[in-house]
């Protein structure tokens, strides 16, 4: 009996002691600690109560945001790399035919250049030299001189007129300000000296020529940088 009474008394005492802090601190588990904090620093307890549940929620929200940021960033980087890879494809960097205006501009200028560069009139060699000076650049200058040296000598000796007419052109590739063009041309020569035999030999004879030229766009026009006559070497 006494033990029971004693027990009840102790319980009452405990309840009374815990009554006030319990109103503040809702969680019964940390009752003892909460009492002390509540008595010592009520504002701190108040802040703890506000921070407690928020702190447990915040890392999740933050983590989700960070993960989202990383995912979005990764996707952006990946998509950008994909787009760049697509644009870097050789088929796309080559704008032959896809850039209609540029393609026809190149075809026109190259055809005209080849006509001039491979035509020669013994009476007007200056025109030929002027064409070489105007239309060629880089190693094409030496290539052209070499290609035409023997022809020129012969034409001078026989007072011949060599006419070259481009019959077909096709742009193989355009890469920015550089392009490569395949050219078919017919060449004919008419001799005005050397007698009838020579004239008959040459007149009306067409030589079929094919060559590939590399060009570069400079100062608003396409200059020939290299002549490829597909030599059998």
């Amino acid at each position, binding site marked *: 009996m006494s033990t029971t009474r004693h027990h009840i008394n102790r319980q009452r005492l405990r309840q009374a002691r815990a009554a006030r802090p319990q109103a503040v601190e809702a969680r019964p588990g940390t009752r003892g600690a909460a009492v002390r904090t509540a008595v010592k620093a009520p504002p701190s307890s108040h802040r703890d109560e506000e921070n407690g549940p928020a702190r447990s929620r*915040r890392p999740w*929200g*933050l983590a989700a*945001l*960070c993960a*989202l*940021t*990383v995912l*979005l*960033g990764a*996707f*952006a*980087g*990946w*998509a*950008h790399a*994909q*787009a760049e890879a*697509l*644009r870097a*494809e*050789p*088929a*796309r960097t*080559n*704008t*032959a*035919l*896809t850039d209609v205006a540029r393609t026809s501009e190149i075809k026109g200028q190259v055809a005209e250049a080849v006509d001039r560069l491979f035509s020669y009139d013994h009476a007007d060699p200056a025109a030929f030299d002027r064409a070489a000076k105007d239309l060629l650049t880089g190693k094409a200058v030496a290539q052209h001189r070499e290609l035409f040296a023997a022809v020129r000598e012969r034409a001078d000796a026989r007072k011949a007129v060599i006419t070259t007419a481009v*019959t*077909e*052109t*096709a*742009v*193989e590739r355009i890469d920015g300000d550089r392009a490569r*063009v*395949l050219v*078919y041309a*017919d060449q*004919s020569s008419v001799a005005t000296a050397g007698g009838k035999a020579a004239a008959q030999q040459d007149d*009306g004879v*067409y*030589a*079929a020529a*094919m060559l*590939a030229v590399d060009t570069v766009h400079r100062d608003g026009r396409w200059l020939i940088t290299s002549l*490829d006559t*597909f030599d*059998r070497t």
Partner: protein
Amino acid sequence: MERPARRRVPRRLRTPYAPALALALVAGGFAAWAGQDWYGAAHDDRAAYAAQRDRALAAGEQAVQNLNTLDHRDLDRGLDLWEASTTGELHEQLTSGRDGFADQVKEARTVSTARVLSGAVTELDDRAGRARVLVALRVTVRAADGTRTDKDSRMLGELTRTDGRWKLSALGQAPVGGAPAG
């Protein structure tokens, strides 16, 4: 009056929420831009046209080379390849003339090999599936007595797309001096 209000907001957002949110938004913006960029690059009409151009040229060069390659010791394979590389009228011509041609080559006992020096597309109708190509070709013919002759050819080819594949529908040499040379 303003101070407590200002202090209450930072207390709730004093955490790295705001910068994290800002970063996420920026990342989202980048992602949207890059995605759009990627979509645009993948669905570029010019790129599709360029791809067709390159496919037509590759098929054209291969077909022109095939049609100038023939070994008298392996006629069937060579002529099968001719027929596989062509379509339309050219295909019909080759098929109907096959036997006569095979006899000729057997008798001459020649071996022809061709090498493409250069090639380019001059016209391409992506929708109709028609293209025109120039192919600069060097054909080497080895005769029965072992002599070799090289001949350069200025080929003009017409291609037609059949079942998604480009095949030669016409082939000839560029005429010289206005007169057809073969």
